[in-house]
């Protein structure tokens, strides 16, 4: 076996046991500073849009902009710039736009680097049907919670003999317990009624079996939340027929990747889906998961909805429910009204016009 990978896995497991992630703090008083990572492509313009809307809503947020393009640290290892790291560790909360991963840059995917730096172990995507943005599915209201550090994305692969490749899926007790805990906490804090563990333990008995066992154990401590288990294929089958049956879903990495994108597809795609990444030590980075759209960058055509809804998710995480509701309602009202929509939503408006409409609505609400 790959000895080094083993040693680092074991130390990762041991390390994780020692660190306890504290409960999110409430920031209801005073101005809270949030690290803003505008990103590339349409990133800067949608970030500006979000900042404008937050200002109109008088949200108690102060933005600290940082760049996370990877630099080579001492020792030759790629890392995110120290100012960005410091800022995130200080503020704990971040909002991030799309990052491009240049093919021949030499550095690994930026998202991967961020994930490793801040141990972002849970990827959370609430998928709610947006009234006014028609898709064949009208009653979606679910949340996918995906374990984001291990599983099939461990990156451990070997060429056994010529023509035979082995990819290793890693499931650990600690990571499974951690994600299950997060899922139930989330369900409780957000008044969700049930948590469903998605797995394939009939085929992958030991690995998914371990994941499932941990979920069951954690479920014992959350009797107020209903716990069910379902095979991945059954979830897929039922999801496309009637997504209203699902509430909170928790699952290992690969299934989470597939299901979270499937659910995003149900409500209209990555352009309107929010996403949050929860890390150890109270760090949380909310992001839009769409691409950088270089073809429309700088032309005031981008749709800031995904980033805006992620920012709303961020406000809720911080306990600022009033402001979150205000901004979210304004955004949905604008979309429902269908008068000022960006091109991807079926309209002709510019990003600035769309933003201005939301700002107006927010101000009218006061």
């Amino acid at each position: 076996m790959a000895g080094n990978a083993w040693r680092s896995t074991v130390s990762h497991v041991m390390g994780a046991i020692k660190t306890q992630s504290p409960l999110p703090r409430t920031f209801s008083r005073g101005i809270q500073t949030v690290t803003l990572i505008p990103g590339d492509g349409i990133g800067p313009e949608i970030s500006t849009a979000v900042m404008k809307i937050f200002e109109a809503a008088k949200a108690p947020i102060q933005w600290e902009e940082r760049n996370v393009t990877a630099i080579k640290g001492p020792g030759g290892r790629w890392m995110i710039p120290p100012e960005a790291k410091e800022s995130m560790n200080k503020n704990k909360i971040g909002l991030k736009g799309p990052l491009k991963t240049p093919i021949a840059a030499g550095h690994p995917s930026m998202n991967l680097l961020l994930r490793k730096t801040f141990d972002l172990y849970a990827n959370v995507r609430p998928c709610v049907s947006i009234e006014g943005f028609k898709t064949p599915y009208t009653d979606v209201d679910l949340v996918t919670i995906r374990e984001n550090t291990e599983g099939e994305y461990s990156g451990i692969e070997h060429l056994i003999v010529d023509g035979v490749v082995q990819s290793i899926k890693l499931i650990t007790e600690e990571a499974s317990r951690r994600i299950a805990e997060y899922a139930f906490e989330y369900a409780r804090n957000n008044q969700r009624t049930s948590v469903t563990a998605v797995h394939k333990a009939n085929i992958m008995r030991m690995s998914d079996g371990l994941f499932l066992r941990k979920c069951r154990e954690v479920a014992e401590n959350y009797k107020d939340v209903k716990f069910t288990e379902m095979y991945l294929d059954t979830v897929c089958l039922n999801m496309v027929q009637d997504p209203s049956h699902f509430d909170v879903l928790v699952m290992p990495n690969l299934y989470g990747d597939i299901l979270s994108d499937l659910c995003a597809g149900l409500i209209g795609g990555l352009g309107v889906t929010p996403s949050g990444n929860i890390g150890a030590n109270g760090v949380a980075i909310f992001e839009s998961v769409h691409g950088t759209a270089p073809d429309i960058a700088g032309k005031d055509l981008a749709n800031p909805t995904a980033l805006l809804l992620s920012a709303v998710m961020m406000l809720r995480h911080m306990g600022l429910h009033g402001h979150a509701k205000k901004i979210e309602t304004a955004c949905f009202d604008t979309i429902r009204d269908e008068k000022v929509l960006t091109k991807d939503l079926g309209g002709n408006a510019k990003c600035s016009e769309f933003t201005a409409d939301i700002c107006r609505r927010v101000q009218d609400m006061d």
Partner: protein
Amino acid sequence: YRSPPPAKYGGRHTVTLIPGDGIGPELLNHVRELFRFCCVPVDFEVVRVDSSASSEDDINNAVTAIKRNGVALKGNIETNHNLPPSHNPGTICFDLYANVMHCQSLPGVPTRHKDIDVIIIRENTEGEYSSLEHENVPGVVESLKIITRVNSLRIAEYAFNLAREKGRRKVTAVHKANIMKLGDGLFLQCCKEVAAGYPDITFDKMIVDNTTMQLVSKPQQFDVMVMPNLYGNVVSNVCAGLVGGPGLVPGVNYGKDYAVFETATRNTGKNIANKNIANPTATLLASCLMLDHLKLRAYAKMIRKAVLKTLSETQLQTADLGGQGTTSEVAHSIMQEIQRGGPRTSEQI
């Protein structure tokens, strides 16, 4: 891909029948009744393999029966967690390497998307289903996903050949090679190599998460899809859901010498077993595919036509389609439809 001729004596074929669990037994009974009614020259050899009583001997007997007959029609078998892992005892013994599912929008079935016509070809023997798992350090489990050049080339060859046979224009390989660079990378490489030998067919590739997103918004863009085992499981269930559910889609598992016919999504339906409410369409269509395979095409055509006609009658639709029809009402209606088609003597067929 012509398999050696199945067991055929005096003009009658012998096919292994595995009732399985849940709704399998009752639906396969309807198949038998229908075949008797239509005078289909097929005799079923029933082999009981299910989650309750199967020892290794039972499974070995089933394997022998299938080997002898070359063709089997089966219901789904629930996983017995006390037995060693073997998700489909068949696939390993018979090297049923290609799982093929043809997903089509059927007339009269209420769905959100229309005009779907996708053939999904799933590698059925390796990938994530290798059942190789171990726990080297307590609390840390490793599960191995194996991708081989041989099997990837084989399934790609099968896919392109089928596409050509059926006059399809495009084959899309579904993968996650951006993350699993060696494993899915190898799969993709093999597909590309095979594609070079079929210049008349467009070869496309798509990452699995994007694929599911595209499937729920614009499924009409897909033609033939080929993929490794796990993604095949996901994509076939998504597509089955899109065209109306597990009660409608038949699936086939092909090996070089054997073929096993079943419902595409392999659900046991144990909650609705023996209540006369299960939808027999998928099982009946699977039996038609089997008849095609046995070259009894006229029978296949006749039965399929009757099944689809009954399906389009809303008042007869079963609960899974939102109706209140019972399984026996549907079966009865199919028989009436066939009778209306004229006398079924062997001369005519």
